[in-house]
């Protein structure tokens, strides 16, 4: 543990958030702003034959009504092939934007939006993914998970010779992120340059996409996104609304604001796709896996091919010599899916970890023992050593905290009143990614430091952890540090996704601090009498506002003193940190073990997750407080996926029918009981200079399978189709 790293810190932006001082995208007030309101299609597929905007245009306060007829074409559609609004009369999904009414006030725009009338030539939509799995085509390769078909050994041959085999199919419906903050943008142009306040996990990509589409240089686009009220992946891609908002502001020569309603959120960005999976396992009677075949298909749109990488971890988790994974796609007349917390991983592990649980009963073996029996000491797909892997310790610690030894092996053997009690467990896994990131540090002669990097903080506590890292390595108290993010005038950072922000941007903060230390040391050593004479950068440390001898801390000089002696008001360092080459020699993963207890009122079909214990190994823990929040959030997400969340489409109309927080059921407080999170810290010198691995997605990866496994243990009923709502529990 350092002076700051590893200690509990409350969020540095917490007070601003709860007092309303933190501005979100829609809260930037630009004088003269006009307000847009979207009009959505009432069909899923076909063509607009007529669109009547006359009544809307005459409605009070209306400035203009944009439709495909009067909207300029966006340039370079080939650069970013996502759906763009109002570019043609063609309808490719239901509740697609067909017009935007812009008025002096939001209320006037909304009232007039009701007056836009469209007529269509309607075609029959095809949205029934599960009915069309047989038609699936091979997925394109993925930049993160590689080829869509991957093999190790000969899985088919090994399967046919296995002593014990198991095979089952699993399905997951579409799910939507439903962050609290609706997507929004405020845009205006000044001297041919665009400024846009947007809700984004990736301001630099918004900038390049907008610049290309609007035909202006990237330097003429300024994207600002300081606070994000939850995103979970739905603000990674550049959604259609920033393009529209910037376009309208240019056409109208005035600032324009556009905010999605909750209903519009359901087609205004992507979602976790419908997923169908088939798992085949082959094992010896003693439990050793000899073959895994994992086939997955997810739905995509007609516009783009979204590969959800469902099978991405299957070949990297258990010591199995023969493995095959296949990823397929089915085109549907729905919007393009996108990354949603632990994309692919949580879906794939739901199937794999459920199947492993099913196999454990077939083998009459404790599910945890089966996993330990197949524990991978090196990566089974490529033979690389893990940089660190404390999964075994996670299993042990989690089992102990949970009381796994109290599990009665036979299903239906634990009961209290009307409730059957079940224990289930699962394994979690995620990458230890790192991306190039740049940070600027301004060390000031007043003893403060300002850091900036165009990353995002969608809720994990990025502002806070960067402040902690800067405080640690600059030797300045956290209160004297400010960290700025979410602005394209700041140095480039990667999208906040993949759970890589601390590893990437945090390492850049560390690197910048190391450079500043060296520079300060050289300056200090100009003084012939400096107590630091003769020391190299590794022999000194920045601590408590001083540059001092690491071994003999009384020997040092104040940072402020060094700057003042040089007559400097400040010292600036811009540092780009890139992943080290050494990473390539290792398999880099974070792991976790999840244990849950469910209580099932079998007569009424109701499942409650009464306890969850997560033991997580993701390198060094920078801030236990926000880390706990991350993992607890993962459990909550897992509960939602397992029990309640389901985007329902009426396939006759190709229309999402539950686009509201009342009807799309994210877990509420009463659904979340006791959640215990624990960390097994790993001392990983390979992954990055800070030794951190991603944790944001990891926390949910094993939860749906653990819950399903617990439901089986409680009831003897295996539910392979999420979510496990009362009707499914009754029917099973």
């Amino acid at each position, binding site marked *: 543990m350092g002076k700051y790293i590893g200690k509990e810190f409350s969020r540095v932006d917490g007070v601003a958030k709860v007092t309303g001082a933190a501005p979100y995208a829609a809260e930037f007030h630009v004088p003269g702003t006009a307000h847009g309101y979207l009009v959505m299609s009432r069909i899923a597929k076909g063509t607009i034959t007529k669109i009547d905007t006359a009544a809307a245009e005459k409605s009070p306060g209306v400035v203009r009504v944009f439709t495909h007829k009067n909207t300029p074409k966006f340039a370079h559609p080939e650069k970013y092939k996502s759906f763009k609004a109002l570019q043609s009369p063609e309808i490719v999904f239901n509740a697609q934007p067909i017009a935007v009414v812009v008025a002096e006030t939001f209320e006037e725009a909304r009232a007039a939006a009701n007056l836009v009338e469209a007529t269509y030539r309607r075609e029959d939509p095809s949205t029934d993914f599960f009915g069309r799995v047989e038609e699936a085509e091979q997925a394109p390769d993925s930049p993160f998970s590689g080829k869509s078909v991957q093999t190790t050994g000969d899985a088919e041959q090994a399967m046919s010779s296995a002593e014990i085999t198991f095979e089952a199919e699993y399905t997951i419906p579409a799910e939507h992120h439903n962050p609290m903050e609706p997507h929004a943008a405020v845009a205006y142009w000044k001297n041919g340059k665009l400024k846009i306040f947007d809700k984004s996990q990736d301001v630099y990509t918004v900038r390049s996409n907008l610049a290309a589409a609007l035909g202006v240089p990237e330097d003429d686009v300024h994207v600002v996104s300081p606070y994000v009220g939850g995103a979970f992946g739905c603000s990674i891609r550049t959604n259609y609304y920033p393009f529209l908002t910037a376009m309208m502001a240019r056409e109208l020569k005035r600032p324009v604001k556009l905010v999605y309603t909750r209903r519009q959120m359901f087609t205004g960005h992507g979602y976790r796709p419908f997923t169908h999976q088939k798992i085949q396992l082959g094992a010896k009677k003693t439990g050793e896996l000899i073959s895994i075949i994992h086939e997955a298909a997810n739905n995509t749109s007609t516009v783009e091919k979204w590969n959800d990488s469902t099978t991405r971890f299957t070949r990297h988790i258990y010591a199995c010599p023969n493995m095959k994974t296949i990823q397929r796609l089915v085109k549907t007349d729905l919007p393009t899916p996108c990354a949603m917390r632990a994309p692919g991983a949580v879906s794939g592990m739901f199937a794999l970890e459920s199947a492993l649980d099913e196999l454990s009963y077939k083998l009459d073996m404790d599910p945890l023992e089966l996993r330990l029996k197949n524990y991978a000491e090196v990566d089974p797909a490529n033979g690389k050593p893990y940089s660190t892997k404390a999964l075994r310790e996670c299993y042990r610690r989690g089992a102990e905290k949970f009381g796994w030894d109290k599990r009665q092996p036979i299903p239906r053997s634990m009961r209290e009143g009307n409730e059957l009690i079940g224990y289930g467990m699962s394994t979690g896994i995620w990458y230890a990614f790192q991306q190039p990131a740049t940070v600027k540090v301004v060390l000031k002669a007043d003893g403060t430091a300002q850091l900036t990097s165009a990353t995002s903080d969608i809720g994990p506590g990025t502002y806070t952890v960067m402040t902690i890292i800067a405080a640690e390595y600059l030797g300045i108290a956290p209160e004297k540090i400010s960290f700025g993010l979410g602005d394209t005038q700041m140095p480039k950072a990667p999208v906040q996704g993949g759970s890589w922000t601390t590893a990437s941007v945090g390492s850049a903060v560390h690197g910048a601090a190391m450079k500043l230390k060296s520079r300060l040391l050289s300056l200090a050593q100009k003084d012939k009498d400096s107590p630091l004479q003769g020391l190299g950068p590794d022999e000194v440390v920045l601590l408590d506002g001083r540059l001092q001898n690491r071994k003999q801390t009384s020997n040092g000089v104040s940072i402020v003193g060094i700057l003042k002696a040089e007559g400097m008001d400040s010292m600036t360092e811009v540092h780009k940190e890139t992943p080290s080459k050494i990473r390539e020699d290792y398999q880099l993963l974070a792991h976790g073990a999840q244990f849950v207890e469910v209580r099932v009122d079998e*007569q*009424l079909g109701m499942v409650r997750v009464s306890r969850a214990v997560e033991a997580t190994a993701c390198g060094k823990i920078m801030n236990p407080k926000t880390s706990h929040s991350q993992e607890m959030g993962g459990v909550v997400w897992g509960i939602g996926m397992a029990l309640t969340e389901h985007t329902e489409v009426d396939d006759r*109309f190709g*229309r999402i*029918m539950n686009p509201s927080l009342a*009807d799309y*059921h994210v877990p509420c407080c009463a659904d979340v009981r006791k959640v215990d999170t624990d960390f097994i810290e790993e001392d990983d010198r390979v992954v990055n200079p800070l030794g951190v691995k991603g944790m944001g997605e990891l926390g949910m990866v094993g939860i749906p399978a653990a819950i399903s496994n617990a439901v089986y243990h409680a009831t003897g009923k295996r539910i392979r189709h999420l979510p496990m709502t*009362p009707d499914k529990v009754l029917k099973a």
Partner: protein
Amino acid sequence: MRAFEYTRADSAESAAAEAGKNTRARFLAGGTNLLDLMKEDIERPDQLIDLNRLNMTEITESGDCIRLGALVSNTDTANHPLIKQHFPLLTQAILAGASQQIRNMATNGGNLNQRTRCAYFYDTAMPCNKREPGSGCGAVGGLNRMHAIFGWSPECVAVHPSDMCVALAALDATVQVVDSQGVAREIPFANYHRLPGDSPHKDNTLAPGELITSIELTKNKMAPHSHYLKVRDRASYAFALVSVAAALHLDGNKIGKARVALGGVAHKPWRVNQMEDFLQGKPAEDEIFVDAAALAVKTARPLERNAFKVDLARRAIVRALQKARDGGMV
């Protein structure tokens, strides 16, 4: 939301009179449902008559009768000592509905008049006879997992969303209303809401302009043996798949009287009188409850996706009766 005129009423009679003049007027109380519907362009009133200054904000006792003012909030009703003492079933039902924030705003009169949460009713791009008579029913051949198993018509399979009303139905409440001429009348709760038939756009039997002034309950001996059970997709803030309001008057182990109403299964709170008659005079035993519940669901007509509700209703009735017998609350 479309433009509307705002009128502030100063008496129940003047409010009803104002509403009697304009069929496109709506009363505004808590607004928790109406304003949502206006934002979704489902309700399009051209006048809102604000009731919030009216003197209908008290819960009063006179002899065996307890009167709930129409403007008392759901929260205040649930927590009122008289209600907790005499009608714990009502307290339990109210607290099973919506969220604390919504219950704080929602009024008793408004609770009776809330519209269905059928997804097709809520989406103006979809057919719905309740929203747009003659446009068809989207749910009858669509996503009808949440919909009716009793009393529906091919024109409408929506269910009434209230929890409170299920308890009021079981408690034989009466609804006091005043019409646009200032004439008061009383509607037995069973006759207040209606089945869809061929006019599903009418949720209840109020005449145009009629305003609820209060709801009356008569004290009974069932308070110690009543229970509200709600089965739903998540633990809070979800509409019932099936709910049961059960109240028993026990004479030792013998059932003197039983009153049971179901929620989430019909266009109105669904009283099961036949089952109540069956229970009368029988011992309060599990086997009897099982037979009674089977009788209650005998007339069920499930739709394509909600057959589970028949079995669930049967099981929920048994459980609610057991809970009521064993002491009710929790």
